[in-house]
């Protein structure tokens, strides 16, 4: 890890990496996850039961309890993480976000009353204006919420009794993320490496364990070659998949002499047999799709993950991952299917699998100097995740 190919060797003497002395010993270690699926399910089912009984208001405490379990069963260098957030903090954060949205609604009402009402735009109702404005601000706000939510989670995370944290402005991140996502959309996703690296950088380099900052030495140019290859292979795979699906479907329908009207009737008045056939066709289409498209995507995502991890460090501790395309398929595709096919009840299984994957595929090289890492003066935000809860409730 200290040879000339290391990003840290390349940036030595300049940038964030130069702040840290070269690590004399790069002893490898991996995180340890000792959570049990049965325990996790017991906590999760209790959470869901309480959600139904309280019509969702218990979610702040349920989420906190799950985090406490997951954090405390993950250890790095023999020391477990702690999650010290409180359900009350999440509730207040949510209520603040509701107040903020209500204030926005009031502002939109004023705009409607004084600008649009009884004007040429009278057909534009107050609900139209509110919905449109929320759609416009919702996109950047979701990014702001993600960053602020990460800050809250890290500020409530302790390792060796030391609080973690996230510096930087969530609003700045929200603006950058919105701009990059928009730019990527209008350039047919050709800016994906720029987006990936530039959105990873603030989240990694602003992260702290106490007074120890993380650093990130990635650059979009490093991964462009691989991405362009993936981009065009992906287009070719889509074409091949579509042709294959049409050939299979066309052949099947003509072989059985099924007309368009017959198909319409099957769709609108489905029998059990039709539903089973539709499920079989969907499974077939999924297999074609997953054989051609998803491995490519997982190949790219695994590469990106390895790149981002290996270009991050925390003081003298370097990181690496050897996650494979197959493991990424398990993470991205199988986890998705587990959640969908179990109607959400597979969520603890997905969390369990994810933490096991992290524990098996994340390598740390080196040991931090504990005496040099101090407790930060700042305790982090008082309340958390209101915006995240409002715009996106995914993820523990």
């Amino acid at each position, binding site marked *: 890890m200290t040879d000339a190919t290391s990003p840290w060797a390349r940036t030595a003497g300049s940038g964030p990496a130069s702040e840290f002395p070269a690590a004399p010993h790069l002893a490898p270690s991996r995180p340890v996850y000792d*959570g049990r699926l*049965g*325990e996790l*399910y*017991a906590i*999760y*089912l*209790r959470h*869901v*039961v309480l*959600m*139904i009984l309280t*019509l*969702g208001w218990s*979610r702040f405490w*349920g989420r906190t*309890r799950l985090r*406490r*379990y997951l954090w*405390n*069963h993950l*250890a790095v260098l*023999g*020391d*477990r993480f*702690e*999650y*010290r957030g409180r359900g009350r903090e999440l509730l207040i954060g949510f209520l603040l976000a509701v107040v903020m949205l209500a204030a926005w609604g009031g502002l939109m009402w004023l705009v409607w009353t004084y600008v649009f009402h009884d004007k040429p735009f*009278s*057909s*534009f*109702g107050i609900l139209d204006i509110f919905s449109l404005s929320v759609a416009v601000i919702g996109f950047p706000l979701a990014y702001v919420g993600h960053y602020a939510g990460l800050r809250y989670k890290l500020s409530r995370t302790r*390792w*060796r*009794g*030391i609080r973690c944290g996230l510096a930087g402005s969530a609003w700045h991140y929200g603006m950058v993320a919105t701009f990059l996502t928009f730019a990527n959309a209008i350039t047919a996703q050709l800016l994906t490496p720029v987006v990936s690296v530039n959105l990873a950088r603030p989240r990694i380099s602003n992260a702290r364990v*106490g007074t120890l900052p993380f650093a990130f030495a990635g650059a979009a140019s490093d991964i462009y070659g691989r991405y362009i290859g993936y981009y065009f292979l992906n287009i070719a795979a889509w074409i091949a998949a579509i042709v294959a699906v049409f050939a299979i479907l066309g052949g099947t329908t003509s072989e059985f002499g099924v007309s368009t009207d017959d198909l*319409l*009737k099957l*769709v*609108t*008045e*489905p029998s059990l047999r039709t539903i089973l056939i539709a499920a079989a066709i969907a499974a077939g289409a999924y297999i074609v799709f997953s054989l051609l498209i998803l491995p490519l995507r997982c190949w790219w995502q695994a590469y990106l993950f390895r790149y981002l991890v290996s270009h991050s460090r925390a003081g003298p501790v370097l990181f690496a991952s050897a996650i494979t395309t197959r493991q990424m398929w398990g993470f991205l595709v199988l986890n*998705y299917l587990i*959640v*969908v096919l179990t*109607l*959400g009840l597979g*969520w603890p299984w997905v969390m369990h699998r994810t933490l096991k994957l992290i524990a098996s595929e994340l390598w740390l090289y080196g040991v931090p100097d*504990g*005496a*040099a*890492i*101090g*407790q930060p003066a700042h305790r982090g935000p008082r309340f958390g995740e209101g915006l995240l809860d409002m715009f*996106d*409730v*995914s*993820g*523990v």
Partner: protein
Amino acid sequence: MAAARYYDGVTAQVTEVGVRATASELVIYRAANFGAADPGPTDSAIVARWPVAELAVLGDAVHEGAPPVVRRGGEARLVVEDAALRRQLASLVPPLAALAAAPAPAAQRVATLGATLAALVGLFWLAVDYGTEYAAPWLPYSLQASLGETVFDELVADKDECHGKRGLAAINGLANELARAAGYPHEVTVHIIEGGPVNAFTLPGGILVFYSELIEQAKDRAQVAGVLAHEIGHVVHHHPIKGIARQYGIELLAKLVSGGYSDLLNTLTSGGNILLALRNGRAFEREADATGVALLEKLGLRADGIAGFFEQMLEKEPGDAASAAGIWSSHPPTRERIAATQRPATGRPAFSDADWKALREVCK
């Protein structure tokens, strides 16, 4: 192997320590050897002395792998990985009793909670599907009317409403007569919007909306009266508010069952919810058809208008979109509705000649 790990709360330094409990304090000390060869706390090796009265166990002692022990108000932590030592400390030091907490076997809890969850989901579903049947009439009328007026304002914001007084009086008079005949205790208001489509609908709070094209294209007054009676059927059965409550209820259930975590599930269930709403829609339409015909017959009015209106629709569109759409349709197949509402052309007319003329000219 160390018995416990001590973090001073100032730096991230780890000290492997032994722990001794006395009646008044917990002594945490650094030692070279643990176990039988442990020399115990010597003055130079003592890392911290925490008064028993100030001790606390943080977090969820039942589920956390090794819940930290702290001195209240301090940042320092003692993490006891050794389960036997945790139990020992719990028995010796009352404030640390939580360290001995052991959950019931996970399989037993999962089975109990899973059964509870299944029962709750079933009860919630029943409450939503059948509870609304009984609860909807009890929802304060002012709230229903306020909701209906808001939706109406939104819907007609860019449309022109017809204001012909005599025509509006005629249709509102018949609407309220039909509603009273069904025992509906509130005022019903009919609005007529200029233009198409050939349609009418009902909003919460007894608000009915007709499009003028429906009146213009109706072959006779019995058809308009039939459609009006059908809409009154929706009003007296509180269909609009039941529909909203059921849709919202099932959406809420999906969110709750997914634990508030899965957007994927919410997306998936919203598709199922649409199908459910459409199924409800078809049931509501059948009920409104039956009630409409019954109300017209009860008042001695011509009751063949509903079937007549459907026949006219079928003539215009022989393919019958509702039938073609099957489970994706909000309305039952038109032929089925004609068969169910077919009545002889007997009874007195719903509108006088003058009222019918005024209604035809309501937008002029």
